[in-house]
């Protein structure tokens, strides 16, 4: 028989305001096995914990029930306090009488009754609790960063800086991500390449960082501290170790009609290519969809011109397995497809472009070598119209768009408008906006400069439609402040398209068992207190994969994420959750039902000798659970017909005792 102490928390008036805590303490004090029952103002406070510890000492308690807030809040607090008095922490149970009682019920009688019942259920459970010992598992001192944009690069650099190995897996041939495609950055107007490429080079040269570019994560097994990841290294048909990045092949390749994704398809590249001059790793890649040699077997020019002998048409995808202690998702974003927006004519009018396309049109390394020219006729635009919030801030009635604010568009549009006005003062620039959002250091000043210093016309109102009108674009829009409908003949229309998580994020989240919200952004463990961790242990979040962010915010989150990763890797051992499944070998049939539902592969079987009746020996196949791998979901316990498999801390009998107490 346990000696149980019951502690009822008032939580100020949070609980005591609705629950008659004295009555609860009195009622629970009569329960079998309860030797001490009291209530207190704030059980979680230092003095509350002292009260509990004193009671444990004086009444020689073997089990503790705290009726307080959610166990998700203070279970750890009370377990720790109890363990300081020598009680196993798993002998503590919480009855949630705040979130589940006082906060939702108004009637005191009703709330008090329910609190007593929940307390009884916790007492019934504690009667069956067993002391549990947390196991330990070793930590692989290496991190994986999925995604090689600025978020991934920054996280990797910071982890490497702390002395841990880190791998970057990037699906495109080079790291750099979206930032590499940008021209200038707000609010300082530095050149994006100038600040990004040194970091790329750092990452490429850092001994601790290994870059798997043109690679994808294929499978993730294991758990925090001990992940085993399969990485598919896609065939480049170029030996990375031999290629010097001289680029001769990319000039000689006869297949020149491949849309250049780096320039948003606004010009072409060769079938063998290096995405851009500062690519890391600077290695050529053959685009198998276009290479004549790979498609027809006729050509082979790149191989002939390559002095290093790096071309290898027979290269195959290779799957490698690597072990990690922690994994960072830095899967980034893409602009949504503007084609769905018929009214803006993106699909039909060549001179309607997206902001990212404009970045390339203004970049010195872009398709126009940095001169702003219209895609249709390569002429200077004289009237440019920017449309804000294309696809952002939509309700579900607009299935083309996203419900959230994409956060970065206001600022980059101000930047674009400013840059155009600066370079081409003869150009009229209109920005149609709903709201201008500039909450950032020096952001509003930047926007005001666009208006006041550069004379950009900011018009409150949306564009209704854009139609081709001869060589020009007819923009029909409203000026809400003037109460007018405007008809502007523009030469170029720029759409600030919403951003969305990369399409691969969903499958990666599934592999990582990390949860996502309905927009496919990764969910953080706590929106305020744990913003860079996923709820899944050992999985961390960096950059836009968690939610829209600009570059400064991305970089700070990336570093924060690195700090959390370092926190894991710095430990030699991690304590495991002791509430794991356990197989009773005397009952187990070895039927393998449990193994089929285990998501972690934590169950294995072996033939064991047992003493049979009449001094015989029986050999039976029985299951055993690896407690370091088991995460304690309990799927196996239901699959097991004989009840051999049970979950420590949530055993069949414990749960049934709770059921009994509740239904009493």
């Amino acid at each position, binding site marked *: 028989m346990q000696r149980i102490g019951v502690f009822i928390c008032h939580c100020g008036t949070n609980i005591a305001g609705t629950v008659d805590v004295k009555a609860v303490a009195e009622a629970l004090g009569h329960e079998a096995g309860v030797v001490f029952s009291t209530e207190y103002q704030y059980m979680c406070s230092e003095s509350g914990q002292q009260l509990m510890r004193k009671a444990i000492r004086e009444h020689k308690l073997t089990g503790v029930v705290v009726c307080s807030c959610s166990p998700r809040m203070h279970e750890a607090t009370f377990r720790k306090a109890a363990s300081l008095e020598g009680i196993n922490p798993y002998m503590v149970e919480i009855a949630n009488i705040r979130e589940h009682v006082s906060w939702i019920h108004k009637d005191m009688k009703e709330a008090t009754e329910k609190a007593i019942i929940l307390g009884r259920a916790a007492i019934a459970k504690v009667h069956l609790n067993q002391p549990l010992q947390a196991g330990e598992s070793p930590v692989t001192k290496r991190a994986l960063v999925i995604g090689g944009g600025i978020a991934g690069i920054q996280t990797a650099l910071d982890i490497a800086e702390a002395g841990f190995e880190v791998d970057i897996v990037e699906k495109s041939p080079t790291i750099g991500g979206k930032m590499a495609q940008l021209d200038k950055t707000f609010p300082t107007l530095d050149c994006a390449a100038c600040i990004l490429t040194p970091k790329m080079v750092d990452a490429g040269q850092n001994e601790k960082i290994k870059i798997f570019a043109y690679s994808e994560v294929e499978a993730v097994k294991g758990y925090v501290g001990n992940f085993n990841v399969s990485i598919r290294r896609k065939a480049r048909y170029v030996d990375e170790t031999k290629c010097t990045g001289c680029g001769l092949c990319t000039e000689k390749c006869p297949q020149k009609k491949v849309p250049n994704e780096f320039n948003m398809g606004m010009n072409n590249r060769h079938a063998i290519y290096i995405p851009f001059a500062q690519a890391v790793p600077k290695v050529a890649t053959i685009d198998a969809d276009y290479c004549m040699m790979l498609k027809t077997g006729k050509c082979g020019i790149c191989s002939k011109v390559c002095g290093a002998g790096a071309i290898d048409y027979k290269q195959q995808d290779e799957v490698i397995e690597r072990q990690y202690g922690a994994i960072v998702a830095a899967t980034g974003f893409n602009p949504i497809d503007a084609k769905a927006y018929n*009214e803006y004519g993106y699909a039909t009018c060549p001179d309607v472009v997206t902001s990212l396309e404009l970045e390339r049109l203004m970049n010195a390394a872009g398709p126009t070598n940095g001169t702003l020219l219209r895609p249709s006729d390569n002429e200077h635009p004289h009237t440019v119209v920017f449309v804000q919030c294309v696809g952002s801030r*939509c309700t579900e009635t*607009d299935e083309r768009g996203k419900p959230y604010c994409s956060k970065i568009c206001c600022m980059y549009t101000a930047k674009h408008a400013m840059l155009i006005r600066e370079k081409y003062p003869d150009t009229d620039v209109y920005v149609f906006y709903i709201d201008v959002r500039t909450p950032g250091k020096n952001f509003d000043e930047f926007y005001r400069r666009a208006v006041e210093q550069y004379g950009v016309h900011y018009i409150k*109102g949306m564009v209704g*439609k854009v139609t081709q009108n001869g060589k020009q674009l007819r923009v*029909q829009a*409203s000026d*809400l402040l003037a109460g007018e*409908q405007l008809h502007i003949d523009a030469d170029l229309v720029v759409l600030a398209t919403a951003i969305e998580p990369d399409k691969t994020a969903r499958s990666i989240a599934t592999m990582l068992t990390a949860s996502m919200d309905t927009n496919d952004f990764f969910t953080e463990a706590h929106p305020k207190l744990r913003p860079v961790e996923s709820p899944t242990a050992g999985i961390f979040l960096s950059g836009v994969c968690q939610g829209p962010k600009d570059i400064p915010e991305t970089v700070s989150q990336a570093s924060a994420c690195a700090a959390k990763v370092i926190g894991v890797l710095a430990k030699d051992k991690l304590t495991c959750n002791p509430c794991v499944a356990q197989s009773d070998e005397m009952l187990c049939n070895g039927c393998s039902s449990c193994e089929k539902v285990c998501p972690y592969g934590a169950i294995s079987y072996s033939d064991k000798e047992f003493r049979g009746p009449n001094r015989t020996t029986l050999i039976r196949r029985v299951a055993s659970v690896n407690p370091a791998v088991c995460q304690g979901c309990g799927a196996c316990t239901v699959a097991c017909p004989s009840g051999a498999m049970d979950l420590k801390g949530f055993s069949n009998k414990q749960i049934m005792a709770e059921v009994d107490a509740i239904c009493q």
Partner: protein
Amino acid sequence: MSHSNNATEQVLRSSGVDVRKCMRCGKCTATCPAFDEMEYHPHQFVYMVEKGEIEKLAASPSIYKCLSCFACVDRCPRGVEPAKVVEAVRLAVIRQQGQNHMKSDDIPALLDEDMPQQLLVSAMRKYSK
């Protein structure tokens, strides 16, 4: 707002529109082909209904200038459906007048697969003013 509470409620109810969803982007007005004809524009309809200024709208010829083309409904990123607000105000006026010239028997013959039914009904009400 209180002075025409009943009328506002009637408009809100018969339109089924939640005017509070409007974020004042003006895309409805930007897209409105009847902009020049209208005294109050689609976004104003939404805003004024929210403020409870039904009388002004009811008195305005704008309610008959709306083409019920539903461009504003189609384009609204928030699913506010301004045309339904216009229609609701119009309906409120017509109900008050107690007139409804087209007989219901005439309607089936006018039905067309591709035609939004609401367009037909609004058109009928408008021209039988």
